[in-house]
C-alpha cells in the first residue's frame, strides 16, 4: 500500500458570528498518498479553500477548529506551535493561489521573492540562492531566466506569473504542494501549459499535490483521487477513473450532468435545482437534501456519515442498509 503523506480526519471548523457559531466544515476527511495528486472539487462556498488553509494553519481569525486532526507525515499539525508550523510552511508544505498578481509582491523583483524563501528555509547565501532561483525559473519554463530573475511581477504575463509562483513554491522541494485554483484565472491554452508543467514537476521532484478546483475537467486530467465537497462536507472520495465512470453521490452526478462538454451533445443541460443553502439555513440532516431528487424522510433528519462503499467513500444514505428501496 502506498504511503500516506497527509490525512485529514473529521476536521470541523466554524466561525463565530453575530448569528452564533456557523459550522463551515463538517467532519471533513481526506487522504493524500505520497507522489499522488488529490483533486478537491466543489462550488463556491463548499469549503475547499478553507480546508486547504487549515492545513497550512492559516484559517481566518474568526474561525476555529472544533474537532478532528490534520496528520502530516504522522504529526498532528494542529498541535504544533507557531514557530514549528512556520518551519513547515513554505518548506515542507507550500501553496500557490488562484490570482498570481495579488500573491506576488509588486515592489520586489520576482528573483528577490524566490530568494527570500531559500534564504529563510535553507539558510542559503545570496549567491547560492540566486543561482538556485535562476535554476528554478528555468525548470518552470521561463525563457532567459538570467534576465527574468530581475523582472518585477507587472512585467510578466499571467501565465508567467503563475510559473513564478510555482517556482517559488517548489524551490525548497516541498513534500506537499497545495494548489488552490492555480489555473482558474488563466486562458485555456495557458492553463494547458501550466497543468502540464505541474504534473511534469510532480514526477521529477516527487511532490504530492492537493489540487483545489471547481473544474471537473482539470480533475480528470491531473488527479489520481478526487474528493467532492458540498456545503462544507466531503460527499464523495474516489479513485479518479472510477469516479468519472460511475459517480455515486447524487450531487456528483448532478454536477457532471450540468456541465456542457465537448464530447457529448445534449439538447438541454440537466440542472441541480435550487442553490447551495447558506450556513445560517443549513438543513439538519443531509446538507444536500434540499436539492436532492432522491431524498427520503431519513435524509432530512440525520446527516449520513462518510462510509466505505466498493472501494470509494460516499456520504449518502442510499448506499446503506437504512435506505428504503423504491418499489418499481
Amino acid at each position, binding site marked *: 500500500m502506498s504511503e500516506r503523506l497527509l490525512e485529514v480526519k473529521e476536521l470541523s471548523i466554524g466561525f463565530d458570528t453575530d448569528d452564533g457559531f456557523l459550522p463551515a466544515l463538517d467532519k471533513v476527511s481526506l487522504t493524500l498518498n505520497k507522489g499522488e495528486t488529490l483533486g478537491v472539487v466543489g*462550488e*463556491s462556498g463548499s469549503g475547499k479553500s478553507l480546508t486547504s488553509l487549515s492545513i497550512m494553519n492559516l484559517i481566518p481569525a474568526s474561525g476555529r477548529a472544533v474537532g478532528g486532526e490534520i496528520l502530516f507525515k504522522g504529526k498532528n499539525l494542529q498541535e504544533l506551535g507557531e514557530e514549528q508550523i512556520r518551519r513547515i510552511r513554505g518548506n515542507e508544505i507550500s501553496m500557490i493561489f488562484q490570482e498570481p498578481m495579488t500573491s506576488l509582491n509588486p515592489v520586489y523583483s520576482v528573483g528577490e521573492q524566490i530568494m527570500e524563501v531559500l534564504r529563510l528555509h535553507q539558510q542559503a547565501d545570496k549567491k547560492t540562492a540566486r543561482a538556485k532561483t535562476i535554476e528554478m525559473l528555468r525548470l518552470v519554463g521561463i525563457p532567459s531566466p538570467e534576465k527574468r530573475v530581475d523582472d518585477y511581477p507587472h512585467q510578466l*504575463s499571467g*501565465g*508567467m506569473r503563475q510559473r513564478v509562483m510555482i517556482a517559488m513554491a517548489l524551490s525548497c522541494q516541498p513534500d506537499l504542494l497545495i494548489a488552490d485554483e492555480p489555473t482558474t484565472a488563466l*486562458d*485555456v*491554452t*495557458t*492553463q*494547458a*501549459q501550466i*497543468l*502540464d508543467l505541474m504534473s511534469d514537476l510532480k514526477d521529477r521532484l516527487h511532490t504530492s499535490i492537493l489540487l483545489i478546483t*471547481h*473544474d*471537473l*475537467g*482539470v480533475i*480528470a*486530467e491531473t488527479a489520481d483521487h478526487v474528493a467532492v465537497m458540498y456545503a462544507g462536507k466531503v460527499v464523495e472520495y474516489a479513485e*479518479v*477513473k472510477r469516479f*468519472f*465512470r460511475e459517480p455515486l453521490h447524487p450531487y456528483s452526478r*448532478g*454536477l*457532471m450532468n*450540468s*456541465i*456542457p*462538454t*465537448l*464530447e457529448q*451533445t*445534449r439538447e*438541454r*443541460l*440537466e*440542472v*441541480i*435545482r435550487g*442553490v*447551495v443553502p447558506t450556513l445560517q439555513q443549513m438543513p439538519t440532516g443531509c446538507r444536500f437534501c434540499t436539492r436532492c431528487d432522491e431524498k427520503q424522510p431519513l435524509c432530512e433528519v440525520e446527516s449520513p456519515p462518510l462510509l466505505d462503499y466498493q472501494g470509494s467513500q460516499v456520504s449518502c444514505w442510499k448506499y446503506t442498509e437504512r435506505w428504503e428501496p423504491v418499489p418499481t
Partner: protein
Amino acid sequence: MKKDNILEVKNLVKWFPVKKSLFSKTKSYLKAVDNVSFSIPRGEVLGLVGESGCGKSTTGRAILRLIEATQGEVLLEGQDLYRLDKTALKEKRKDMQIVFQDPYASLNPRLTIRSIIGEAIKLHQVVGEKEREAFMEELLYEVGLGKHFLNHFPHQFSGGQRQRIGIARALAVRPKLVVMDEAVSALDVSVQAQVLNLFQDLQEKYGLTYLFITHNLSVVKHISNRIAVMYLGQIVELADKETFFQNPQHPYSRALLSAIPSSNPELKRERILLKGDLTSPVDPPQGCRFFSRCPEAQSICREIQPPQKEVGNGHLVACHVR
C-alpha cells in the same frame, strides 16, 4: 434565397491610441478589433470565442455603439447604426441589449429591482403606466424569480439571481438582438446550467438572436448555431457548430480545442501546446498574427496576412496553410 440576417458587421475596426511614453509624439495603436466581418441570421446564436485580450468584448460593445468603432459598418436589420444620429440611435437601442459578465458590478446597488427593470420600460414606453407593474411581474416570472423581489436591492440576491435580473432588464424592452458578454462565466457550474437553459427557453419563446461572447468552448458548443474564433483582433475561423467541432481548420482553433481538459480521464486528448504567450495587440506583426506561436508556420506567414477563404459550405478560415 438569401438568409434574413438581423445583424451584419462589415469590416469593423477599433483601434485605441496608446502613447509609448508620456511625452512621445508618435502614437501607436492597440488594434483591439481589426477588420472583423460576420453576420447573424434572425433567431440564431453566434458564439464568439477567444482568449482574454483577443477583442471579443470590444467587438460586442462596438456593435452596440457602447464604444465608437474606428471604422466599419454595423447593420441591424439593414440599417447602419453608425449612420444614425443620437435620437435615432436611442430609439434603436430598444432592439439591441447586452447582458454583462459580472452580475455584481452591472446592477446599481442603490436601486430596487423595480427601478432597475422599470427604467428602460418607462424610457422606451414599452407598455403604458397602468400595465407596467404587471409587465414587470411577468418579466420576473419568466426569468424564474417571484414578483415580491421587485422591492429588493441587488445585494439581497445570489450571483445566479442577479444574472437573472440582468436578463430581465435586457428583455424588458423586447429586444431582437442580445449580446451576451461572458454572461455565465462568473457563475458556479450548477447555476450556470440553470441560466444556460433559461437562455435557450427565452430564445425559443421570443425568437431572439444572440451574439454569445465567451472564452468557454464547451458552453459555446452547447448554445450556438455557428462559431467564430477570434485571435488578436481578427476572426481566424468561422463555421457552423458541427463543422467546427468535427473539422476545425485553423491551427489556433485546433490548439484551443485540444487545450480544454477532457472530462473523461480514460480518454487522453492529443494536446497541441502553444509556445509563448499572446502577442501584444499594440502594433501587431504585419503577417499572420498567430505566426510566432503557430506549430505549422511557414515563411509566407511572416510576411503576408492570410486572407479569409472559404474551405467548404460557409466555413471560413484565415490561414495560408489551409
